[in-house]
């Protein structure tokens, strides 16, 4: 019987007080956010948020939708490793899967906070509406989270030295990944479909018949960008060396996906005859320039330039800009590019900010400790259990 894997030596870098400060802040935000969340549940939406009939959704939904896109890291990396069978990317996969899992947990918590009848969140299990994008998204997220849990379970079981569950997971891993890719394609794209029900509310620069496709492509883009950011961080946390080939490979992939996205988006605007709107230089066109220009075209250029994408600094800038663009896209579609009723305005209040920060902080903390204490980069363990 094998003993638990040898504990990695903690290099000095992990004890830097900078990390502890960050962890401390995250912990504080988690606690405060938890209090804010409880306040919200106890007092109701009207008493605790700035949401109104003019703006029924706010930063919770905005961050939810963005986080779902970001959590595309899990299915994109799993697909890369298992479907496309690019083994060299394996080290980046587990941090991505863990990120995805915790991301979806955070999404579910934020969603519970947002639901008016959170006590009945299970209603969609028994009450079906197959026309509703949100219905499909809800089911897919629940099913996909289950898949993610199974996909991530070896990280725990390997650490605990439980061989049987790990083998069992690896026996079905292809099926899991195919399920993951299928479920992800569905709900990532349906998040775009969701906006198709708002033909008069959503500004025409965003409203498009190919919204579903655009949202799916951007989730791939975001997922790869997240991975590009977090893989080296994960490596640093456990003191493992970073494979720059992974980084530059991811960077190039992001660049190409961003090119596809840009082509689709600009092409769609042009075909719809909306180019004049893009150059109207009103608030909406400026938002689109920010989202597409700064948040997609600029990083695309950076990441497609071989000399730039080889450098870590430009990789980070490029990935952050992509994530900024996807975040902007979700917030624009949900809030800034909506034609709300006259006189309506929305400024998220303290409860909304604190609870959001708390949930995200908790997820970040969990990811940090997961990276530290679970089996993430342990190739010995992996080699042992994977056959």
């Amino acid at each position: 019987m094998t003993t638990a894997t040898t504990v990695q030596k903690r290099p000095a870098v992990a004890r830097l007080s900078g990390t502890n400060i960050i962890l401390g802040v995250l912990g504080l935000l988690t606690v405060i956010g938890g209090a804010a969340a409880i306040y919200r549940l106890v007092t109701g939406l009207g008493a605790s948020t700035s949401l109104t009939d003019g703006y029924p959704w706010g930063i919770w939904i905005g961050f939810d939708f963005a986080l779902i896109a970001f959590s595309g890291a899990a299915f994109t990396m799993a697909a890369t490793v298992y479907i496309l069978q690019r083994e060299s990317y394996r080290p980046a996969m587990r941090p991505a899967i863990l990120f995805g899992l915790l991301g979806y947990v955070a999404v579910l918590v934020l969603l519970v906070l947002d639901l008016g009848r959170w006590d009945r969140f299970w209603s969609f299990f028994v009450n079906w509406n197959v026309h509703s994008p949100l219905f499909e998204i809800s089911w897919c997220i629940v099913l996909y989270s289950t898949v993610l849990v199974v996909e991530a379970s070896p990280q725990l079981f390997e650490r605990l030295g439980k061989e049987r569950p790990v083998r069992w997971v690896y026996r079905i891993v292809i099926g899991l990944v195919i399920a993951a890719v299928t479920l992800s394609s569905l709900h990532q794209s349906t998040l775009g479909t969701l906006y198709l029900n708002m033909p008069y509310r959503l500004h025409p620069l965003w409203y498009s018949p190919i919204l579903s496709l655009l949202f799916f492509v951007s989730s791939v883009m975001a997922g790869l960008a997240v991975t590009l950011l977090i893989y080296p961080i994960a490596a640093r946390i456990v003191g493992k060396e970073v494979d720059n080939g992974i980084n530059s490979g991811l960077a190039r992939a992001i660049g190409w996906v961003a090119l596809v996205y840009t082509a689709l988006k600009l092409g769609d605007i042009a075909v719809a005859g909306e180019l004049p709107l893009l150059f109207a230089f009103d608030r909406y066109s400026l938002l689109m320039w920010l989202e597409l220009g700064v948040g997609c075209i600029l990083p695309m250029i950076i990441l497609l330039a071989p000399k730039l994408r080889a450098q870590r600094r430009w990789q980070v800038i490029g990935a952050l800009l992509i994530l900024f663009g996807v975040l902007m896209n979700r917030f624009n579609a949900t809030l800034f590019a909506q034609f709300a009723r006259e006189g309506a305005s929305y400024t998220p209040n303290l409860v909304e900010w604190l609870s959001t920060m708390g949930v995200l902080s908790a997820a970040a903390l969990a990811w940090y400790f997961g990276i530290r204490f679970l089996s993430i980069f342990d190739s010995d363990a992996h080699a042992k259990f994977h056959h």
Partner: protein
Amino acid sequence: MTKAMLIDTTRCIGCRGCQAACKQWHDLPGETTHNTGSYQNPPWISGKTRTVVTFNELEQEGALTWTFAKRQCMHCEHPGCASACTVGALRKTSDGPVVYDAAKCIGCRYCQYACPFDIPAYEWDEVLGLIGKCDFCVDRQGEGMEPACVKACPTEAITYGERDQLLAEAHRRIVADPTGYVDHVYGEHEVGGTSMLYLAGVPFASLGFPVLRNEPVSAYTEAVMRQTPTIALTVAAGASALYWIIKRRQMNMVLAEPVAAAPSIDQAAEKPEEVES
């Protein structure tokens, strides 16, 4: 046949008996309001106010007009809210009303986004809030009675009956008084037609009625959603195919690699894993 209401704003005197009757029938509380420079109060539909009469001072060919428009759920023939509702709590009945099953609702408020008329309203001041909107007095209709607002109206600005008959009456009125009416029955075709039909003497847009196309709000969404099984199968099949193709190619590549000085039997036995990588 589906029931409908015809609201002829040229006959409305803005008395708001309808607004009060709706509150009384549904036992809804009054809201705290303030006069912001208009008779219109509460300012719009809310979780506790299911119908509102809007007050519109407009100039029509140099003359002042004051038009009152009762607004409430339009009970669309193809309601966007029902299509969008996550749990199917909203449903168009064959009799006309779009009904809301509060027992199913999870308060996600997606219906608020899917309604082009800005109607479903949320009970923000409840700890566990639900959506509120006009239910076309479906309980009264079930007993063979007209909706409360219809009964309260003193000038028959609101009439109730079969949709096709009300449409015929609406067009008859326009023909009988072409200068008194705008030649349009609002709700006849908008977003696929609604059970609430309107006549007016001033342009509907000036009364705050949204300008809408004839196709239902959710027509395209439902077309996309219908592809869900196809997409799922396609992606699964495609991913599987991709996996097998790449796997076979990699296996072939491994098999095609020249076998360098064949290792001794012993050497080969020491590294079984390499074959698998």
